[in-house]
């Protein structure tokens, strides 16, 4: 996994202010993962990946930093929010094979411009 981390880090440096949700990153997933579905599907191909699979490469503190909002709206950070802190599993809002709505939209009208459904 270390190698993967390095590759990812290199690509990330090249993309300033990149959001975790941005489409560019999805393209990039293809590049890193290639055709090896098992990179993510750690529970077997027919099962959804564990949330830890995403965290092999993505660091929750980094993500929280990237999506931080101003002091007044600080709890609207999807990666560190009022209700669940940093414990919100990735697949609640992100799906590699199908689009998903941000979980906040269950109750709130916040806009997350970079989140692609």
């Amino acid at each position: 996994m270390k190698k993967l981390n390095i590759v990812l880090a290199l690509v990330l440096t090249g993309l300033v202010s990149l959001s975790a949700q941005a489409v560019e990153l999805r393209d990039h997933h293809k590049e890193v993962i290639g055709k090896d579905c098992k990179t993510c599907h750690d529970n077997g191909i027919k099962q959804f990946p564990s949330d830890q699979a995403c965290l092999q490469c993505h660091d929750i503190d980094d993500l929280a930093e990237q999506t931080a909002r101003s002091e007044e709206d600080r709890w609207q950070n999807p990666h560190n929010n009022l209700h669940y802190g940093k414990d919100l599993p990735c697949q609640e809002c992100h799906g590699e094979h199908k689009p998903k709505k941000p979980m906040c939209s269950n109750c709130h009208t916040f806009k997350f411009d970079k989140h692609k459904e």
Partner: protein
Amino acid sequence: MSNNNLLGRRNFIKGMGAAAGVAIAAPAMAISEKADGVKWDKEVEVLIIGSGFAGLAAAIEATRKGAKDVHIFEKMSYFGGNSAINGGLFAAPGTPMQKKEGVQDSVERMVADQMKSGRGVADEALLRHVAEHAVEALQMTMDAGSEFHPYLQQLGGHSVARTYQTTVSCGAGITQPLYKECQKIGVKTHNRSKFEGFLVGEAGEILGVKMRENYHFGEDQPGKVIKIRAKRGVIMATGGFAQNIDLRMAQDPTLTAEVGCTNAPGATGEGMYEMFRLGAIPVHLAHIQSGPWASPDEGGFGYVSNYSIYNFPHSMAINRLTGKRFMNEIADRKTRADAELSCRDEKGEALPPILITSYKDSKKHPNTKKVIKYNVGWKFDTIEELAKHFEVPLKPLKAQIEEYNSYVKSGEDSQFGKNMTKAKDKYIQAPFTVVRLWPKVHYCQGGVQVNTEAEVKDSFTGKPISGLYAAGEVCGGIHGVSRLGSCSIPECMVMGMTAARSMMKA
């Protein structure tokens, strides 16, 4: 479900479709089995299902009482259940803040308020048990790091101010510290783990459960079912069924998808129904409460709910068709929810009423800014602008404001008998803030019957089902017809603690 424009019929129907989808996505029912000859995949000491207030409090208390191997299983991907998204309001009698503010209160008085709202069918013994231990439960939240606003609130139906609220005005101000405390003291937490039924011993005692691992709510995903032995027993803290439209309409056909829901999506009731199959006694299932402070302009509990709970005492609720008040703004929840549902246009379609507050008074609540910013509430400089925006007849509205302000002055509401104490000197005057109101299903008073030891009673023997405990909203009958606001958190926590104590001494 988010009905951003309840005014438009088409959107309204669309919203209903979305809600119906939730009901369809509800997972298949669990089935319990005899445990003889079962090969256990895993053994734990204390097994708790559900990670809201009740489950978290039970885990902490069990650990304090000496349990070494406590496990919480949570169906959803995130922890905290419905507890993580409510208003964070906590009622208790005889608290330090009441002493500081000079409020005379007692266990008896709190129970009496709740009995009144329960309309004769509340469980007095359970209410007293909860009230007696409420301060202790409040202390548990503070020990874990919960912080509360430095003032007390008096919610609808309470005869005195006895309600604390977390500084974040949300139950997460309690679930987050409790969850962190659980991690600190070594409680093992498992998300995406769905309860699939009990494993029952020879004498009908609960020996363990079937649990589906790697479960993804609302998705077609196989996962894997394992059998877990629970040495001391199982605590069911699985919450209510407000999100299950089929189940709630089976109890109360008026609770269609037209009435939204404030609950977390996981509140679908299969834990409760499985206990019924086992023989638990169903109580008061048809008493389902809608929150009269919710808004049709956002999904779930959102921002408006807390905004209106705070502002109701010094605000005016107006029927847009008539421009007149139609209820006591601080009556109990059922009274107000019913009154709101009666606000309809000439065709009988929903016409959500509006809550008018003076901006100078509303702005003291931290949500006011957000309510305006996220377009779920509006600010107006003149009454004409306000009336035009909501198509309210101007003349009667002006007359109503004048009349209401005379009640503010006299301290007596001759229209609806509202207690004007908290409205003192708070005249309705420009600029105004306004939100729309429409009830949302909020709380299921019904559930399985438990005693003051949090033991689940069997319908045929009348005796507790051995090895089975329940706490929180999954239990029924405690509050009767209508639960008073801020009385669920103390109930969940006290009964969670009680379940753990009973289990540890069994």
